[in-house]
């Protein structure tokens, strides 16, 4: 059976840590990076649980700063 797998890449220097993507993600993949800030001093998000990502693009669509790039592919099991 084939499965849809996704992956996200976060432009961490552009991210402002607004957390809208965390709420939008249906699979709870994204979380704030713990105790880290970017060059502007903002906390930023990362794929805390990347294996669960299905590449639905919800996080990237709601991101006001366009920080998230989404990839998706079919994986044979």
């Amino acid at each position: 059976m084939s499965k849809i797998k996704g992956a996200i890449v976060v432009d961490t220097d552009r991210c402002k840590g607004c957390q809208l993507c965390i709420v939008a993600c249906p699979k709870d993949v994204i979380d704030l990076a713990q105790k880290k800030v970017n060059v502007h001093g903002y906390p930023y998000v990362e794929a805390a649980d990347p294996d669960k990502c299905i590449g639905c693009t919800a996080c990237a669509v709601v991101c006001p700063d366009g920080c998230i790039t989404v990839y998706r592919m079919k994986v044979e099991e």
Partner: protein
Amino acid sequence: MTNRIIAPENLVYEKPKLMNDTAMHYCPGCSHGVVHKLVAEVVAEMGMEDKTVGVCPVGCAVFAYRYLDIDWQEAAHGRAPAVATGVKRVWPDRLVFTYQGDGDLACIGAAETIHALNRGENIPIIFINNAIYGMTGGQMAPTTLLGQKTATCPFGREPDLHGYPLNITELASHLKGTCYVTRQSVDTMASIAKAKKAIRKAFDASMQGKGSSLIEIVSTCNSGWKMSPVKANEWMRENMFKEYVKGDLKDTTAL
């Protein structure tokens, strides 16, 4: 595993090509960024990258020209529809739109807006309604809800003292010059898709010479409202949508 998925052939979503790499000055979670992305996507889809002129307002979106790689013209406070009228009449083959906030469009620019819409100029107006003056520090705007607390009405807006919220989109839907008047939001994936369709429809209608259109985007201002971005979205859904009901108020583009 993740490394195998991250390849150019698997790309499904990235920052619009028309959006510059310049970091945006907007507060974290501001709706402006989403609308900027939608405008960039729609302009690219229409193939009008080199033929689009945006008119920036005074307000938070005053620096819009830094973020989108299209032509822009800065207008005096509230006068964006007047400037856009001139640009469009000189250059009818260009896509000319204005991008305004509620303080700019509904307060100081109310006359320009209403007359440009009533004349049926072929310009779409994108109206970001967050019910507050965000840039200047959260003062009361004409669109502020009754009971809403701002810097200049700290005990909540009262109708006896401050008057009633101005529903400019409702007003525009009764003008004969408008062809498409709609109210959308950009808080969820579904609403963002709808808002994008609305912007596309308005831009297409303006290029076909059908008249003016007004796309109101009910937005959040989490700094002005003093809430977290997630909380602001919830507050907007609970309170703003009651006063500003979403949906198409007028659509004669198919006629």
